[in-house]
C-alpha cells in the first residue's frame, strides 16, 4: 500500500524536485555495468588498448642466417649419445644419490651454439637493446663474443646485462671470438643511456674497425676506449658491444677521432644511422652488454680526465595528486586539510621561525630531552595544536623538512 502511494506521489511532482527528495532513499545493491561473465576483464581491455597491428608494427631480422644443419642428422647423433649415456652405471649411481653435478663450462659452451642466440635475443629485447639501437630491427647473435675486463684481482666477463662498476672497467677489455683469418670485423661499444644533451643519441666508447680475424690489436682504432661514466643519481646505463661482420675493407675516416677524444660531443653516435648507411657492407653478428652505475671513483675521473664538474642528478617524481579544494570539506581535520592547499614554502617558513625563536646566537643548543612529550603545555592550548606540537617534538612530519 505504502509503495503504491509513493509511486503516485512521485509521478505527480516534477523531476527536479523528485531527485532531491529521492536522494535519501537507498535502493540496495545493484550492479554497475555488465555482469562479470559478460563484461571485459582488465587484462582484455588492456590488451585491446595496446594492440599493435602486425601489418604495420613488425620487426626485421638483420642478422646472419642460422647455421645450416640437417635436423635428422643432429637428432640421430643426439639419440645415439643419449642411448650410450643411459648405459653408464656411474652416471646412474650419481643421479640416484643426488650427487650428479653437471659441468657448467660444458653446458655454457653447448648452450651458446644451440639455444643461446634465441635466449640472448630475448634478454636483449627485455633490456630494449634493439629498440634503442636499431629501431624496428633485431638480430640473433650468431657469433659468440667473449669479452672480459681485467681488474687487478681477476677477470670480469661481460655477458648480457650483468652489472660492472666503472672502476672495474677502467681499462680496455679483452675480446675474443671464433673467426676465419680472412674475415674482417668491426667492434663498437656504445652507451644509449648516457648522452648529456640529446637523449636519443649515444656515446661511442670504443670503435675498432677492419679487424682481421679475431686479432683486435691489428684492427684500426677509430675511437679510443673510454671507461663508463654514469653520472650520480641516473642509475644503470647499458653499455653495448656489437660485433659487425664486414663484407669488405671499409673506410671509416668519417667516424675517426684523433687521440683520446675527451670532448664528449665528439663521441656522439647513432647506431641506427651508422647501420643504415652501411647496411650493404656490414652485418651485426655478435652482442654482449653490461650495466654500469655510479661509483666513487668517477669523481676523480670527471675532474682529472674529462676536466669538468661532476654532474649530480635527482629523480624527478610526479607531484602528488591533490583534489580540488572544497568550501565545506566533511570529515577532514581542518589544519591538515588547509595545509595541502597552502604554499609549502610558507609552511616551511613558519616551522623555521618557530624553531629560530628558541635558538640563541651564542649559546649551545640545549641537549634533547629523553621524553620530549612529558612536558606540560603552558595555559590553554587547543587539542589540534597540541597534536601538532607533539608531532614536532617527536620529529614527525613536516618538521623534518627544516631540521
Amino acid at each position: 500500500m505504502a509503495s503504491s502511494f509513493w509511486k503516485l506521489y512521485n509521478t505527480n511532482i516534477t523531476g527536479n524536485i523528485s531527485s532531491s527528495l529521492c536522494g535519501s532513499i537507498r535502493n540496495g545493491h545493484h550492479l554497475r555495468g555488465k555482469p562479470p561473465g559478460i563484461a571485459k576483464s582488465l587484462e582484455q581491455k588492456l590488451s585491446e588498448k595496446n594492440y599493435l597491428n602486425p601489418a604495420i608494427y613488425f620487426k626485421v631480422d638483420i642478422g646472419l642466417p642460422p647455421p645450416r644443419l640437417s635436423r635428422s642428422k643432429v637428432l640421430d647423433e643426439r639419440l645415439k649419445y643419449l642411448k650410450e649415456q643411459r648405459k653408464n652405471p656411474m652416471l646412474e649411481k650419481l643421479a640416484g644419490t643426488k650427487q650428479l653435478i653437471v659441468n657448467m663450462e660444458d653446458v655454457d659452451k653447448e648452450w651458446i651454439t644451440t639455444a643461446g642466440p634465441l635466449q640472448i635475443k630475448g634478454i636483449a629485447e627485455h633490456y630494449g637493446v634493439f629498440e634503442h639501437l636499431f629501431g624496428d630491427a633485431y638480430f640473433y647473435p650468431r657469433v659468440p663474443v667473449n669479452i672480459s675486463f681485467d681488474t687487478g684481482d681477476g677477470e670480469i666477463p661481460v655477458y648480457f646485462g650483468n652489472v660492472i662498476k666503472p672502476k672495474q672497467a677502467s681499462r680496455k677489455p679483452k675480446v675474443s671470438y671464433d673467426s676465419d683469418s680472412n674475415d674482417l670485423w668491426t667492434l663498437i661499444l656504445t652507451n644509449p643511456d648516457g648522452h648529456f644533451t640529446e637523449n636519443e643519441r649515444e656515446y661511442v666508447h670504443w670503435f675498432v674497425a677492419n679487424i682481421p680475424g679475431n686479432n683486435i690489436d691489428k684492427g684500426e682504432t677509430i675511437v679510443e676506449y673510454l671507461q663508463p661514466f654514469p653520472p650520480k643519481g641516473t642509475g644503470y646505463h647499458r653499455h653495448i658491444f656489437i660485433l659487425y661482420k664486414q663484407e669488405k675493407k671499409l673506410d671509416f675516416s668519417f667516424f675517426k677521432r684523433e687521440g683520446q677524444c675527451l670532448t664528449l660531443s665528439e663521441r656522439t653516435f647513432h647506431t641506427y644511422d651508422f647501420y643504415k648507411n652501411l647496411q650493404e657492407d656490414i652485418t651485426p653478428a655478435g652482442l654482449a652488454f653490461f650495466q654500469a652505475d655510479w661509483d666513487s671513483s668517477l669523481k676523480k675521473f670527471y675532474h682529472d680526465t674529462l676536466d669538468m664538474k661532476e654532474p649530480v642528478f635527482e629523480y624527478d617524481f610526479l607531484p602528488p595528486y591533490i583534489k580540488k579544494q572544497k568550501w565545506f570539506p566533511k570529515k577532514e581535520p581542518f589544519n591538515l586539510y588547509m595545509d595541502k592547499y597552502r604554499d609549502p614554502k610558507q609552511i616551511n617558513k613558519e616551522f623555521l621561525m618557530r624553531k629560530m625563536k628558541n635558538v640563541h646566537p651564542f649559546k649551545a643548543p640545549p641537549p634533547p630531552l629523553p621524553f620530549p612529550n612529558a612536558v606540560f603545555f603552558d595555559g590553554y592550548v587547543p587539542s589540534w595544536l597540541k597534536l601538532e606540537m607533539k608531532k614536532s617534538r617527536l620529529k614527525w612530519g613536516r618538521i623534518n623538512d627544516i631540521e
Partner: protein
Amino acid sequence: MFVPKLTSQKTTKNLSSYFLEKMLNFRYNTNKLINELRLHRSASTVTPKNEVSPIFTNRNPRNLERMRIAYKPDGYHVEAPGRNYWHKLLLHSSGRYVTASVHHFEGGEILRTSTSDWALKKQLYKTNDTAAYINLGRVFAQRCLQSGLIEMSCYIDAPNPNGKVALFLKAVEDGGVCLKEPTQFKPIRPWDLERPEKPWEVTE
C-alpha cells in the same frame, strides 16, 4: 605513472629571480638547490668543456626497476598473492622435462632454462629426477646472474622440505639469486611521518 626523467635543474628565463625565490625556500628541496648553485657557478665561469643539459633521461627500461622506483603492481586483495612483482620465478614440470623461467609483469617470459635443452640434457641421466632439478637450479641461477637479474619474486611453495622443488629453490639461492624483491620506493611527501633514506643514495 612516473616520469622517466632525472632532473638536476629547471631551466628558467630569469635565473636570478628564480634563484632568489629558491633561496627563500628554506632548504625545501636541498638537492635541487645544490644543483642550481652548481649551474649558477658554471654559468659565471668560462664555457665548460662538456655541456650537461638540465634534464637527463635514462632510456634503460630496467633502470627504474633496479633503482626500486618503477611502478610495481600490487595485485588484488582478495586474490591469492602472485601479482606483486617485477620479475617472477616460475617452475613448470611436464611428464618428462622441468622448465624454470623468469616472467616480467609486462614483458612476459624473458628467460627460460629447461632440462629439455640439449646443453643440459646431454649431461643428465634423467631429465626429471632430483639431480635434474638441482642442476637445473644451478644453471638457471647462472643465466640469471649473467643477464643481471639478481632478485626476483618467488611464489612457489615446496610441498616437501627435502623434495625436488625445495632442492631446486635451494640451488637457485646458492647460485646467488635472491628470491625476494625489494618493495617499491614511494616518493616522500611533505606530510609523511618520516624521511626514509633513498635506496639509490646508499653506497656500500
